[in-house]
């Protein structure tokens, strides 16, 4: 059976792609962010995943408002990155895991999560940058991938409670796959930030740190909040923390915190990073 090793959660902003393309990892502005990653590389060396299931939100590359799925799962043999409007160099294609994708789709729909299934799917910076940050030296991402996209563009968004349940069902679906694959879950989004409106630039360090801690000891903590509560506390795009929540929910049982980093700001965003290993 497939084994879930743990989860890695990280923030994403397009500017990380520009920093990587320009080799700015040691630039004083970027160093506190990139310095968070070597312990994650060590952990990946130790656990050796075959597959990464990446929970992320699309920013208007693959999905437009003409059709906006709440939950979408990729089922392609490969996924292309593409220009998102800024001309940042694109990253090479990602290898899919279509058989595992279809198993996940079948199991999630059976459990009453009515998904959109994507046999073609462009993946944006929220998908590509975490993988590049985790495997910086590989030209091609060395693991197979399954994209799981959660709508954070157009309300109503799925609630934290619903994302927790989806994550839990996703983890159970993966664990029931009859193949000895080693799987890591990646959650890409957040933490607090707000790009739009007169409150642009808003961040909330205390809330972010409380949320990060909650994932270890009390993972349902944030499900007490509505998405509007989360926007109030973490900013309009802070609601992307739903990716972290679904990732944690996909991990079976208790977890051990292997590593965490938190830095303000990268671009307009509070950048969080955490590695959670499945205990036992």
């Amino acid at each position: 059976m497939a084994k879930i090793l743990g989860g890695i959660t990280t923030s994403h902003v397009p500017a990380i792609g520009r920093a990587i393309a320009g080799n700015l990892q040691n630039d004083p502005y970027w160093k506190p962010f990139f310095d968070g990653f070597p312990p994650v590389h060590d952990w990946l060396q130790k656990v050796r995943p075959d597959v990464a299931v990446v929970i992320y939100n699309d920013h208007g590359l693959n999905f437009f408002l003409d059709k906006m799925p709440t939950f979408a799962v990729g089922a392609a043999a490969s996924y292309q990155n593409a220009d998102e409007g800024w001309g940042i160099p694109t990253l090479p294609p990602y290898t899919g895991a279509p058989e595992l994708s279809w198993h996940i789709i079948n199991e999630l729909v059976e459990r009453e999560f009515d998904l959109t299934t994507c046999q073609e799917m462009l993946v944006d910076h929220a998908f590509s940058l975490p993988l590049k940050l985790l495997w910086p030296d590989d030209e091609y991402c060395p693991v197979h991938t399954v994209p799981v996209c959660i709508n954070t563009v157009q309300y109503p968004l799925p609630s934290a409670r619903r994302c927790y349940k989806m994550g839990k069902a996703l983890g159970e679906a993966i664990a029931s796959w009859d193949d000895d694959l080693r799987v890591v879950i990646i959650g890409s989004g957040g933490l607090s930030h707000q790009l739009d409106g007169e409150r642009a630039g808003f961040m909330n360090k205390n809330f972010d740190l409380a949320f990060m801690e909650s994932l270890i000891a009390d993972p349902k903590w944030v499900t007490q909040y509505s998405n509007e509560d989360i926007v109030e506390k973490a900013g309009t795009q802070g609601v992307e923390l739903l990716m972290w929540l679904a990732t944690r929910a996909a991990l079976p049982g208790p977890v051990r915190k292997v590593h965490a980093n938190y830095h303000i700001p990268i671009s307009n965003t509070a950048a969080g990073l955490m590695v959670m290993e499945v205990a036992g």
Partner: protein
Amino acid sequence: MSMVRQKRTIPGTSIFDGALARKGYALNKMCFSFNSADNRDAFSRDEDAYCDAYGLSDAQRAAIRGRDVLGLLAAGGNVYYLAKFAGILGLDVQDLGAAQTGMSKEAFKAMLMAAGD
């Protein structure tokens, strides 16, 4: 029964719901097209013709012409799509933040830094 759900107010913040998604559809569709470099070039060559092709409203057109970020949001623009318009203008998210808060870019960046204290 009311068709409109009671919305709560979060200062300086709007929730991109169905009403805004309807209002902003043409504007967001145009900005979505800017994923393509060819489309960005076509817009830059003739902004008015490009706005015509997407059927922008007068308010949307005025906000595009005026590079008015809050006006674009009020006209139904969604920030994820508007960011692609900002890219054509060579503006980053600190420029957008400064424009929306009425701060200088330097003051806005200092505010971001201070959030980490």
